[in-house]
């Protein structure tokens, strides 16, 4: 029976260590904030930088929405700035088609690879996972630091690419070849180098997370006692570890195509601008798509699984009862992780890869929806019969459920080849995946920020402005994305810099199936919805900074009355995290357990700590 209670090496030895742990030494700025190996500081670095990138991604989106609603009209307020910074592509303060393509490609890249993934996986994972499993830090603190530096450098390369001649990458965030190689800008090479750095960063992060979760769980923290958030991060880390490298391989090959003149993805007989391209040919454009989507689809689950983990923690905490179907959640997550590797080609029905292959991928796509629905159902059922605490984190978590539901269910017609042929590359698909990621994942991330802010700073975020932030975001998210379903169903294609004007009934007379005026008008609603959505983030930004110093201070280390180990630490957790080594004695969600006083039982209850020789 020795195996269940392990000897845990002491990580606080002597007075010298204790001093260091409480941060009494004032470290210089560089070692404290730039070259820190503390998982919490790295988590905050990731969090701050990725939030900045998300704000920038939002800005790019606003510029694009203006251009879609008012093609060729100079952008108000920001037009002169764009012209000054970017020059000719923004001549007269208006967005040219090339610049629109750049913004589109970079909006996607930044939101996915520099915004949501670093925030959901790296920031929350870094800060919370070691706390939740009772570890003093990550397994490899210096590799953790290197991971952040690679990420930062990758982001920098992406940003710099806006200012090179020709501008940033223009071939969409998917960078399909041969388009990505034939557009005359070096932005694509920058994009590829940036991606290789980001992939390196996520590789280092993923190795670290998995090793930490396997090796550094506190005594008594068995696999089935892990909070669901940790499970979600564990599976996410495996997805990043195994799905990203094929894209890295593809990235190397496209870089060779762009820089060394190879023809990995360039077919024989490729003509550019009416002339035969000076390449050897023989390559395969489909190969790029396969390798890209081999990452691309697991990436969707990288975006959504940590969000589900956060929502699960917040819901369990605010329903004050055990989460419904903990084991179903865990096994569903594992099944999603496995299946996500064999659904990628449902992004490629339009390529003509063949009916048989399409049938296989349709089947796997339908199967993977089952565990996703199980997870969502468990979360919904957890609400049943609870006396719910409606605080800001809980509102965002509750907002996540129907929004992700809409996003998920509207994905089904895209998973079936017959309907996808029509809907492919229309605004319908934009609406679909934004419902999953924007009001879905990003709401969950907001929930996480409002939820863990008191642990990080010792103060709560302002509740009133939190609610304003939630309701405005909730309403305007829907104003932005709901009309896109209609636009897409009516046949409006994505990636058009004039918002489909050239297919509108107003411009093309006597043609069947043009875009009616009512559909074109939606572009204007969406624009103002997007502007309002942007403004709705201002209370959040102010709240975030103001509350660090002036928020309502928490009375205890565990202001939400939570059970998991992250709340059993001092506030904020010192270097090394725990005052005494935690001994875990029960599962993660023991709220209002029958036969016990108090509304919750922490995972490590010092009163019930077993002696090492108890077994």
């Amino acid at each position: 029976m020795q195996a269940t209670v392990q000897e845990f090496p002491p990580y606080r030895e002597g007075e010298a260590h204790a001093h260091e742990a409480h941060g009494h030494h004032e470290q210089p700025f560089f070692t404290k904030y730039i070259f820190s190996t503390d998982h919490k500081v790295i988590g905050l670095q990731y969090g701050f930088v990725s939030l900045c990138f998300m704000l920038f991604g939002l800005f790019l989106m606003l510029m694009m929405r203006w251009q879609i609603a008012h093609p060729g009209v100079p952008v108000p307020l920001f037009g002169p700035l764009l012209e000054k910074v970017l020059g000719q592509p923004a001549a007269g303060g208006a967005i040219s088609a090339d610049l629109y393509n750049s913004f589109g490609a970079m909006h996607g890249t930044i939101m996915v690879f520099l915004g949501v993934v670093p925030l959901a996986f790296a920031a929350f994972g870094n800060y919370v996972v070691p706390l939740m499993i009772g570890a003093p830090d990550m397994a490899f603190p210096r590799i953790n630091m290197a991971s952040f530096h690679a990420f930062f450098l990758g982001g920098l390369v992406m940003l710099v690419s806006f200012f090179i001649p020709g501008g940033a990458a223009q071939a969409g965030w998917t960078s399909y070849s041969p388009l990505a190689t034939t557009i005359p800008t070096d932005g694509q090479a920058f994009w590829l180098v940036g991606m290789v750095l980001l992939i390196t960063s996520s590789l280092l992060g993923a190795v670290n997370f998995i090793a930490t979760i396997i090796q550094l769980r506190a005594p008594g923290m068995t696999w089935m006692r892990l909070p669901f958030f940790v499970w979600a991060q564990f599976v996410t880390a495996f997805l990043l570890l195994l799905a990203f490298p094929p894209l890295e391989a593809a990235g190397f090959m496209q870089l060779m195509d762009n820089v060394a003149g190879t023809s990995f993805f360039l077919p024989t007989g490729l003509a550019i601008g009416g002339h035969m391209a000076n390449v050897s040919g023989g390559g395969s454009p489909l190969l790029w798509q396969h390798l890209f989507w081999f990452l691309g689809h697991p990436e969707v689950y990288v975006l959504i699984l940590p969000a589900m983990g956060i929502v699960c923690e917040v819901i369990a905490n605010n329903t004050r009862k055990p989460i419904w179907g903990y084991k179903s959640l865990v096994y569903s997550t594992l099944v999603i992780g496995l299946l996500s590797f064999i659904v990628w080609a449902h992004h490629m029905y339009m390529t003509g890869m063949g009916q048989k292959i399409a049938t296989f991928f349709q089947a796997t796509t339908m199967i993977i929806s089952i565990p996703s629905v199980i997870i969502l159902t468990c979360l919904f059922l957890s609400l049943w019969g609870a006396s719910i605490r409606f605080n800001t984190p809980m509102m965002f978590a509750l907002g996540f459920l129907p929004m992700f539901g809409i996003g998920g269910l509207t994905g089904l017609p895209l998973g079936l080849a017959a309907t996808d042929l029509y809907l492919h590359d229309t605004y319908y698909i934009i609406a679909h995946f934004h419902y999953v990621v924007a009001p879905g994942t990003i709401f969950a991330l907001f929930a996480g920020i409002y939820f863990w802010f008191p642990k990080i700073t010792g103060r709560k975020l302002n509740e009133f402005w939190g609610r304003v932030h939630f309701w405005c975001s909730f309403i305007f998210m829907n104003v932005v994305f709901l009309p896109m379903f209609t636009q897409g169903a009516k046949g409006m294609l994505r990636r058009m810099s004039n918002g489909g004007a050239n297919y509108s009934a107003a411009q093309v007379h006597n043609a069947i199936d043009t875009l009616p005026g009512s559909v074109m008008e939606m572009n204007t609603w969406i624009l103002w919805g997007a502007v309002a959505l942007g403004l709705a983030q201002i209370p959040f930004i102010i709240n975030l900074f103001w509350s660090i110093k002036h928020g309502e201070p928490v009375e205890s280390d565990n202001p939400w009355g939570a059970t998991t180990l992250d709340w059993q630490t001092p506030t904020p957790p010192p270097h090394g995290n725990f005052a005494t080594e935690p001994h875990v004695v029960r599962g993660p969600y023991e709220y209002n357990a029958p036969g016990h006083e108090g509304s919750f039982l922490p995972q490590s209850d010092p009163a019930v700590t077993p002696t090492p020789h108890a077994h």
Partner: protein
Amino acid sequence: MDIPYTVQVRPDTGLYNAKVGIWLFLASEMMLFGGLFSAYILLRVGTPPGEWPHGWLDVRFGAFNTMLLALSAITTLLAWVACKVGDFRKFKFFHACTLILALSFLCVKMYEYHDKWIHYEIELKDGRIADGHLVSRTSDEVVIEGRYVTDKKDLYDLRAQKNLPHDEIRIAPSDIVKMQNYGPWHNTFTAIYFTLTGLHALHILGGCCVIGYLWGPGSKMWKTDHERFTNRVEVSGLFWHFVDLVWIFLFPVLYLT
């Protein structure tokens, strides 16, 4: 603050942290090279019949390099054993052998690259193709050592063509339509050849840096924390074996088929 299980193994997993880390890293590496190998398959399958090159690489060099890496795998293992039994001089000796073998591998590889770099295919105005190694190139004439072919197809499969002529061919620049060396841009075979072996060579170089560090300045840890040092040697050895294994696949795929 110390991280648990950096040196000792965790009882229920039976592993120390770095060993978990390196296996995860190798899993990721497998997917990286897996992506490139599947690209190789797709490109080769998609080539029109008879146009995939055979026999472009010298099997003797490939076989020699395979032997070098196989030997280095053995010396890496012996270096780790020397750590385990506490024989510092043997450790130094065997890892010095590993380093020499690895650097010899890179030298041979560089020679092979250079051989492809100076190998030119020159399309002439009369429809013939001159194919051979560049001797000199001035504004008046291009001199290569090689042969003329009339059909490009003769250049693809060299396995059956023994004793190719190596005549000195002088060509006036005005007769040349297109002159291109056998670099990555030549066709998809050279592209995947340079990419795969180049990435592999980068891994060899990375391995050399790590093993070189452990052999040189890093070996101070032998005295201060012997167990941890042994773990480092083991972990870097695991990486080295992986890099060798990749070559075991590269050799038949590129040289023998």
